[in-house]
């Protein structure tokens, strides 16, 4: 919503605030100003002049030398190249030292362009005659301006006077962000009422007088509303002997300030009233209305209708139409029809001011793909009581402008008038709610300033304030009058609440910490991705992870499914780094996956947070395994973590992947990214990936610590060096140690592994160091030897041979 400040000042006499002061105050009062435009700020010393004579420039074909009367004793000599220069034309003239806002091509120069007298091809020129663009405006708002050339002023424009003021270009236009609850403020009157309240000044709208001088409209038209839900009120008045002409300069000026292009008196009046009252109106050519009848009904499915912009529209049965005795003449609240539009030879006009259901208008205009000024206002849901005020105002303007003869009376179909609401007046409650101590009388005065009536214990709410429903709404009114800035600052009372972070968050934060201290930086990737990732990741056609939560209105296919796998985002980020030649990259993410319970989705999916890490560059599989184990150990999973090398994950290297298993549960998996997958992301290096399901870890995690003492008795260490068949994993060997080592085996450590010719074919050499310790005494060979024998015997069953 925007308003001209000049218009507001006219409605709020005494408003002397500067544009900046005005905007700041309105913002703090609740009508936030987005910005304001001071159109005149780059215009200076521009007057109205008349071209008295014109002669050719001796040295330039396209230039002429003009003598321009600017109301001074001597005419001004100005050289111009404008194509439409003509003797007798009145034009804007910039005097020597003045400023224009931009070039004649419409480009604007911040701070303006200074015009100085000088010589043009040797001939003295003492100023410049201007186009509308040079005045900082456009043909959009001055449709009578030529496509190029000087802007011709009306013949009665006063010579020598300030042209900027004359054209209304010295105005300031203020742009507000009106919140959706304040429907009344989508009107100049609404804003002016707010301004009057904000500055504690009287509000003086134009008084609407009785209009009509002959006949009775009821004789000429009847109105019938078939769908009363979608049209709560319909008013109609008639204007005879219409004389189409341009509207007066003051009206054009105000319309222009709103960015509305003046057309003719009748159209301008309806637009003016729409802006002033926030009530869209429509004017029909009465002679094209068949059967002296208006019917408001729903369209038929598939009905075709040509709107006044000449476009044929296809309607559906949820759209509301305005019809006459035979045919549709307009789409209610959106746009009139070509068949009833007024033309320059219109004789009788029928004005419509009605109230349509906002939601219906919004949805209809959406389906039609046409949002008009009118529909934009209707969709907010208007006060039906405003319709008649706007109608009468329009008729008053018709009389004032001499645009026609207003017929007596009004046709007004309004079955269920909206009544004023009554809400208890509870100043103490407002104060308790706000933390203030505003006297009840002051609150009463606030309310009355904005036209709420306080009668006894009740506040009577005018119908234009549909937003005020209960005490909290009134508390807000009190607060904004009092000033949000004056409300004290306190902290909530009340018992010490238990602040804190859930275990879940603690585990996630631990993952972050371990990852960071392992050299990984934290990434964030989108939760939705393309369904094409499944093929890219070599996922089988029938894999359940292809069952996704799918967005019905995505930004595009690439953002259409909620991820069921965690790898795509982070691998894409690795690829970004790889593509930018970052020598290595280690990233992690705490990323949710979204697993539908059924497809199509009827329930909310299972959202599972994953600890995801990936890298390329320095490091290998075991680097990643280290990250997993550090994390799990820190999370209190102190038991044995095992790895199952047959995880079967299609996007990982088949020989270099494993499920991570703890107490029989799979916590996640890790591995080298399959070379084909890495290549399809553009990574020509080995990449590694880790995924741990955090909800599973959260269940097992424990942050309890119990000191278990430090072993004081000396340990005994035995090294064991062996050759092992190549298919026996370290895990199998270690299983033997654990099973046979008993209570005395404290720990073991692999310190050498080797495959090569010396070891022989299909075998590898492995060397472990085993540490034995007794809790209650110094351990002896007699303790250790039998255990070692058991271990060696058991290894023998795996075809492990000791090396001597």
């Amino acid at each position, binding site marked *: 919503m925007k308003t001209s400040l000049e218009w507001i000042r006219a409605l709020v006499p005494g408003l002397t605030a500067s544009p900046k002061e005005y905007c700041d105050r309105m913002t703090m009062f609740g009508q936030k100003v987005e910005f304001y435009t001071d159109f005149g700020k780059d215009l200076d010393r521009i007057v109205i002049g008349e071209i008295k004579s014109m002669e050719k420039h001796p040295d330039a074909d396209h230039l002429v030398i003009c003598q321009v009367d600017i109301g001074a004793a001597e005419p001004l000599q100005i050289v111009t190249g404008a194509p439409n220069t003509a003797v007798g034309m009145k034009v804007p003239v910039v005097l020597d030292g003045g400023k224009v806002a931009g070039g004649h091509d419409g480009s604007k120069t911040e701070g303006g362009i200074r015009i100085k007298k000088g010589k043009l091809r040797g001939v003295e020129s003492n100023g410049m005659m201007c186009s509308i663009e040079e005045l900082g405006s456009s043909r959009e708002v001055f449709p009578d301006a030529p496509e190029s050339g000087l802007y011709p002023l009306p013949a009665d424009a006063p010579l020598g006077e300030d042209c900027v003021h004359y054209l209304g270009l010295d105005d300031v236009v203020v742009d507000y962000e009106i919140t959706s609850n304040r429907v009344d403020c989508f009107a100049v009157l609404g804003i002016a009422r707010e301004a009057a309240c904000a500055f504690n000044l009287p509000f003086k709208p134009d008084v609407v007088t009785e209009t009509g001088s002959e006949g009775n409209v009821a004789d000429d038209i009847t109105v019938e509303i078939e769908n009363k839900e979608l049209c709560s009120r319909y008013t109609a008045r008639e204007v005879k002997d219409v004389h189409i002409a341009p509207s007066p300069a003051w009206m054009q000026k105000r319309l222009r300030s709103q960015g509305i292009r003046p057309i003719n008196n009748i159209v301008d009046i309806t637009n003016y009233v729409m802006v002033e009252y926030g009530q869209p109106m429509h004017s029909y050519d009465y002679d094209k209305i068949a059967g002296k009848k208006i019917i408001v009904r729903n369209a038929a499915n598939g009905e075709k209708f040509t709107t006044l912009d000449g476009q044929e529209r296809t309607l559906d049965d949820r759209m509301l139409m305005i019809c006459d005795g035979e045919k549709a003449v307009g789409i209610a609240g959106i746009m009139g029809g070509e068949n009833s539009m007024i033309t320059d030879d219109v004789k009788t006009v029928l004005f419509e001011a009605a109230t349509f259901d906002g939601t219906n208008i919004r949805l209809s205009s959406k389906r039609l793909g046409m949002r008009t000024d009118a529909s934009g206002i209707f969709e907010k849901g208007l006060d039906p009581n405003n319709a008649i005020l706007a109608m009468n105002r329009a008729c008053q303007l018709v009389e004032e402008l001499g645009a026609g003869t207003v017929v007596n009376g009004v046709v007004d179909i309004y079955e269920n008038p909206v009544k004023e609401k009554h809400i208890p007046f509870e100043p103490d409650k407002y104060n308790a709610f706000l933390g203030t101590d505003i006297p009840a009388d002051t609150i009463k005065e606030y309310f009355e300033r904005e036209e709420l009536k306080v009668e006894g214990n009740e506040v009577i709410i005018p119908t234009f304030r549909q937003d005020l429903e209960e005490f*909290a709404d009134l*508390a807000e009114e009190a607060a904004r009058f009092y000033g949000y800035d004056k409300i004290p600052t306190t902290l909530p009372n009340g018992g010490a609440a238990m602040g804190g972070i*859930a275990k879940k968050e603690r585990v996630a934060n631990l993952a972050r910490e371990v990852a960071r201290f392992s050299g990984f930086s934290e990434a964030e990737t989108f939760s939705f991705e393309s369904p094409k990732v499944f093929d890219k990741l070599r996922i089988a056609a029938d894999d359940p992870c292809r069952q996704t939560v799918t967005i019905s209105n995505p930004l595009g296919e690439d953002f259409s499914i909620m991820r069921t796998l965690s790898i795509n985002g982070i691998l894409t980020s690795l690829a970004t780094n790889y593509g930018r030649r970052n020598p290595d990259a*280690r990233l992690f993410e705490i990323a949710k996956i979204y697993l539908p319970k059924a497809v199509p989705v009827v329930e909310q999916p299972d959202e599972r947070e994953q600890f995801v890490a990936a890298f390329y560059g320095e490091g290998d599989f075991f680097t990643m395994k280290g990250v997993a184990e550090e994390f799990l150990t820190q999370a209190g999973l102190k038991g044995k973590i095992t790895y199952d090398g047959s995880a079967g994950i299609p996007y990982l290297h088949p020989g270099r992947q494993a499920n991570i298993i703890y107490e029989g549960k799979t916590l996640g998996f890790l591995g080298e990214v399959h070379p084909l997958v890495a290549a399809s992301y553009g990574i020509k290096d080995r990449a590694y990936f880790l995924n741990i399901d955090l909800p599973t870890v959260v269940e097992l995690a424990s942050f309890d610590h119990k000191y278990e003492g430090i072993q004081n008795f000396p340990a005994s260490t035995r090294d064991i060096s062996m050759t092992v068949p190549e298919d026996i994993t370290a895990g199998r060997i270690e299983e033997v140690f654990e099973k046979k080592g008993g209570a005395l085996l404290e720990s073991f450590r692999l310190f050498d592994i080797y495959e090569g010719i010396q070891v022989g074919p299909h075998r590898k050499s492995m060397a472990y160091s085993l540490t034995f310790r007794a809790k209650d005494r110094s351990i002896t060979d007699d303790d250790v030897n039998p255990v070692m024998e058991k271990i060696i015997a058991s290894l023998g069953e795996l075809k492990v041979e000791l090396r001597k």
Partner: protein
Amino acid sequence: MIKEDLEAIRAKAAEKIAAAEGTDSLNDIRVALLGKKGELTSLLKSMKDVAPEDRPAVGKMVNETREEIEKRLAEAKKTFEEKELEARLSREKIDVTLPAARNRIGHPHPNTLALQEIEKIFTGMGYEVVDGPEVERDYYNFEALNIPANHPAKDEQDTFYINKDILLRTQTSGVQVRQMERGKLPIRIIAPGRVYRADEVDATHSPVFHQVEGMVIDKGIRFSDLKGTLEEFAKQLFGADTRVKFRPHHFPFTEPSAEMDVSCFKCGGKGCRFCKGEGWIEILGCGMMHPKVLRMSGVDPDEYTGFAFGVGLERIALLKYEIDDMRLLYENDTRFLDQF
């Protein structure tokens, strides 16, 4: 006779010690003079030739000589050791400007950094951090927040829908509704999390971003408490000199509603390019819980009042760390992340 010999040994010792080149030669001297087969030891062996009455005096002389030699040896040794240490230390001088052998440590995401600061402030004020589903029911995202079907605000928020009933949440407010429904009062929570709006990606928009919403419900909660709490938050987050400004606004779920600006932390409020000359930067929306919202979730607005606020995490991160393009947050270029 012995006396002269002792003198000779003593002189010899002095001479040899003076000529010694290191602790090794001192050792040789000790062996040659004081050792089992050393000169002084041999001299002692000739004590038997000394008249018994002279023996104590001679013995004393021998011991004195020995002590003196040992003392000199010790002194000489100490000097040598000092020299050797000095030589070693000077030999071992390193170029301290050579690169450090650092552990490789990664960096937090700026969102996490900002979130942890925010969480710290609010948990310090007794707030519990809670979360909820991102794929949400329409009821929890809109209806329970006083945004009924066909409300224009639903359009404004450009919602991603899964189906008519299920959507990607546009705000974390659903978490608050669920908390109220649990019926355990008072409530003091913040709910951080991902939210979604159908905005194309550009320097200031992302279809995926994060919000941190907060809610307090208790008996006697006032608008002034909201102001005080958020002022405290702003001061802790942006510095003690930060000033705040509350402007009236409208949200369907709060009444009265406000937007909070903070004084520009770059220029202190004088106006600069960062705050577009305003001196103020808008950072959050807030308000008193709308009685309708309380009622819908089973809280009696005549008994309990409350406030709520919502802040965009990315907005805070971008402002606080002076990041000029939101896309950087989701690209994960390590050269960007390394700066946090």
